[in-house]
């Protein structure tokens, strides 16, 4: 599944200072849908190069990191349970860095 992932507010520093990543994420085995929960685990092992604790806490993002799926706050789409589709755009913005 082709996705565009964008990191901002300082989070890009954790992935080689690259803000926009076009990625291909495969469906997890025996799953029919790709969820944000799976995507976060994928990002953590494939894109984050340093200090993953700045991005995640437990199995979700660290408090203070905004997540937008197609320009919409993921709180409205079910957070970790949000299902993703081909060509979706997911944006992560840290609000913990200085404004």
């Amino acid at each position, binding site marked *: 599944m082709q996705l565009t992932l964008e990191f901002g507010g300082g989070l890009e*520093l954790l992935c080689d200072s690259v803000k926009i990543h076009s990625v291909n994420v495969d469906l997890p085995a025996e799953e029919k849908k790709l969820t944000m929960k799976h995507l976060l685990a994928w990002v953590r092992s494939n894109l984050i190069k340093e200090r993953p604790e700045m991005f995640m806490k437990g199995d979700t993002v660290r408090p203070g990191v905004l997540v937008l799926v197609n320009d*919409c706050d993921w*709180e409205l789409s079910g957070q970790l349970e949000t299902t993703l589709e081909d060509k979706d755009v997911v944006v992560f913005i840290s609000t913990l860095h*200085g*404004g």
Partner: protein
Amino acid sequence: MEASHGGDKGKSRLCSICNQRRPALKRPKTLQQICKECFYEVFEEEIHRVIVDNKLFKPGERIAIGASGGKDSTVLAYVMSELNRRHNYGLDLFLLSVDEGITGYRDDSLETVKRNEVQYGLPLKVVSYKDLYGWTMDEIVKMIGLKNNCTFCGVFRRQALDRGAALLKVDKLATGHNADDIAETVLLNILRGIYSPNAYRGFAREFIKDLERIRPRAILDIIKSGEDFRIATSTKMPEQGTCQRCGYISSQKWCKACVLLEGLNRGLPKLGIGRTRGVNSEHRKNQQIDTKNIQSKPCGTLDF
């Protein structure tokens, strides 16, 4: 954006204000699900009400907008110029930026401020630590190392805004502090005196964001608590005066910036750090100069 399937994810409801568009966020303040357009509208209208109700500005005033190029001050610059135009406040607005002299740190954000200058048609003034104090942050870090350098940077930035405001001859200075910042300050003020400040600074921010996840209004509630503080009548409050050396705001004989600067210029960089009061308490400690050449690191790579 493809509205068709993007819409599916929030399809259960429409914006609770206009009832027409797909909601894009949930306001922590009201828990309302609202669309982008309605968010801008209520956000700008609320700021306008606060400005009017508290009589923050008078027609003809000159106002500096502290601009770092980050998201908060960029929003501030937009909102101030937009409301000034829309509601005819009659204000003369200026952008004021501080260049700390950290290699590779401000360059990007100063570019953003220059874009703000063009986009909103606001004159920009940049003041640098080098011009104001004779030292860049890179030079300060070479002298003192990475421990305590944030104290210098923070104290100097605060006064740099005052000095820039004086240079621009403005009546007021607006800064883009957000609710998270204020709530953090309230917590730090409670914790101050119990713990060493640098031990919990990062923790306070993480703590309020943890609270917010459980209860989105928590941040506004902390601010309300801060506003409702009652100070014991026996408590001696600091009085705002002026520094005998530089003339800018200080509650002491010498302002913190002058104490720190004196330390740097005399090769006693620990002057004014921690609980020793240096000039303001008459006894000074002779401290070793740390001449280790440590590479300056932008704060962004240390912590965010």
